[in-house]
């Protein structure tokens, strides 16, 4: 009996730690995630539904939404191509400067987005290296849509590659070699073996990349020039409205961005729930 009692009392502090940790995590979640998110929607609807809808229907808002989608539609597919190519190079070949390439892929993560934007201004701005030449040929990058796209591509560069590299590293190249020996061409190998094996990681990468492409502020802000209706994406529109004391308008656009984020999360969760078994089977070691 005494032994049983002791084991019960020994279990008690562990359980306490267990509960305390869960509560702590929940508290953080509420304070730093749920509360701000709720505030966004509360502020947006403070004056009711009609002013909210009006704020979204304004031409500047609609132009910002369109521009944000356009930038994402260009940046995300390019990122997929680059991400797969980079991950392939990093995991299937041995070459000099491999670690350097890895560091370069991570660069956008470690550099402040403002700097990334400034680099493009330095390169393509009116006083920049290529600026005068481009101006003479009628190409406008800075304070125009191409600048926004370039900055967004730079910022989102690591997302797909970083998602794929660890997975492809762990999966190894044996299946691809098997496909080649069985007579598959390079494309057949890629589409029938490689792509199916990385599709979930690729999808995660795309979702994350898309969220960032739509939400990026710093780098885009530098190259945008804030020309209303022409070069303002949704995050920039939020800031401009806020600075003009148009709180309902600012939070209305912000709520759309938040919705996009929630949608991304929902899609990811849905996929994990629907295809959980398959994802587990594709994970390295599940083989």
């Amino acid at each position: 009996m005494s032994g049983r009692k002791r084991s019960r009392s020994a279990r008690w502090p562990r359980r306490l730690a267990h509960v305390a940790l869960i509560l702590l995590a929940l508290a953080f979640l509420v304070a730093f995630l749920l509360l701000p998110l709720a505030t966004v929607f509360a502020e947006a609807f403070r004056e009711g539904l009609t002013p909210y809808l009006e704020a979204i229907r304004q031409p500047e808002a609609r132009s910002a939404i369109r521009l944000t989608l356009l930038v994402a539609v260009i940046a995300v597919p390019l990122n997929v191509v680059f991400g797969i190519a980079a991950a392939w190079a990093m995991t299937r070949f041995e070459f000099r400067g491999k670690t350097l390439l890895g560091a370069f892929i991570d660069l956008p993560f470690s550099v402040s987005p403002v700097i990334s934007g400034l680099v493009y201004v330095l390169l393509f701005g009116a006083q920049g290296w290529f600026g005068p030449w481009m101006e003479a040929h009628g190409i406008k990058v800075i304070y125009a849509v191409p600048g926004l796209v370039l900055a967004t591509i730079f910022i989102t560069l690591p997302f797909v590659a970083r998602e794929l590299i660890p997975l492809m590293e762990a999966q190894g190249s044996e299946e691809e070699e098997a496909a080649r020996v069985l007579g598959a061409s390079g494309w057949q190998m890629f589409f029938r073996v490689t792509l199916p094996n990385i599709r979930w990681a690729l999808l995660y990468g795309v979702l994350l990349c898309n969220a960032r492409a739509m939400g990026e502020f710093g780098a885009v802000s530098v190259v945008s020039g804030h020309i209303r209706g022409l070069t303002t994406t949704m995050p920039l529109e939020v800031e401009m409205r806020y600075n003009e004391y148009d709180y309902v308008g600012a939070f209305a656009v912000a709520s759309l961005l938040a919705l996009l984020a929630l949608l991304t999360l929902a899609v990811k969760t849905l996929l994990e729930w629907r295809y959980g078994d398959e994802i587990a089977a594709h994970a390295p070691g599940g083989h």
Partner: protein
Amino acid sequence: MTLELSHLNRRFAEYQALDDVSLSIAPGEFLALLGPSGSGKTTLLRILAGLDYPDTGSVLKDGKDFLATTARERNIGMVFQHYALFRHLTVLENIAFGLRVRPWRKRPSRAVIRERVERLLKRVQLDDLGRRYPAQLSGGQRQRVALARALAVEPDMLLLDEPFGALDAQVRVTLRRWLRELHEELELTTVFVTHDQEEALELADRVAVMNNGRVEQVGSPEVIYQQPATPFVCEFIGKVNRFLVRRNGDRLSAGGWMPDGDPWQGRFTEAVAYVRPEQLRLAVPSSQPAWEAKLRHIYLAGSVAHLELHVDALDQTLEADIASEDLSRRGLHAGMELRVAPRSAVLFPREGQGATLNQERWIWHARSPVPA
């Protein structure tokens, strides 16, 4: 088809994977590439498969340059060490893969593919598992799927990379026999890589023993076992006792035992001798040269008993193997004294502490084989 590999060299950043390797592979033969890890055997297999290329050297297939063809043109079936089954495809789809990726002109019809896949499934005894995914199979089943997938393309040659490495001992023996039967049935040229000498000796028609990127010896399992060409082959294949033989006046001897004769006619003062455990005689009459040995332990391993004998004259412990049933018949027990001598030995002369001179190998047999 005959493959002629000559003077292959392959260097990786840190080491020489293949060092002047020459080898010929006859049609229909079952060849084992045997060696420890890092000996270059897998590199050699990958070169045959077209997954790697030598820095120098050539591979000729029936006189034509084999290295000029790509992996997909070589018509080879390969079973990878970890099987490399396509994890997103079912067993049926895995086996059909090699047929489905063919250019449409050469692609069999759906019905033919289906029929061939079903036949192969039956052959590897997995009829009911066609709709499963690789993750739902046991190791032995995966291996058989990998084999069926390799055979589906009707290859000219089958390559197996450590085919039994990841299986437990019982499955391994069963699959080994089954593979040998399959080979006899299909008469397909088969090359397999292994580090397990027992596997190589049991399965293969011919064994190529590799070490440090070099082929040490090529030959039938009997030749490899009984007439090892180098000290490495002696030590890597089977168990072996090693001791030094020195020149004493005009005779070679080791602690009281001496082999009769001297093929080197006094040229060398020292040789390394190898004796297999089953080639040690245990009760040598006092009229013949032998060692006084003390039987220290008897390790009974099923049908075979391993005896640990300490020889004071050599100052080392030797191992002798006898049939377990002979233990009691001879009244052997730990602690007893025995007169022990080799029945046969392989000797390699050497100069001083230097390398052995392998081309001067001497295979010695007792002149009048006396029953032990």
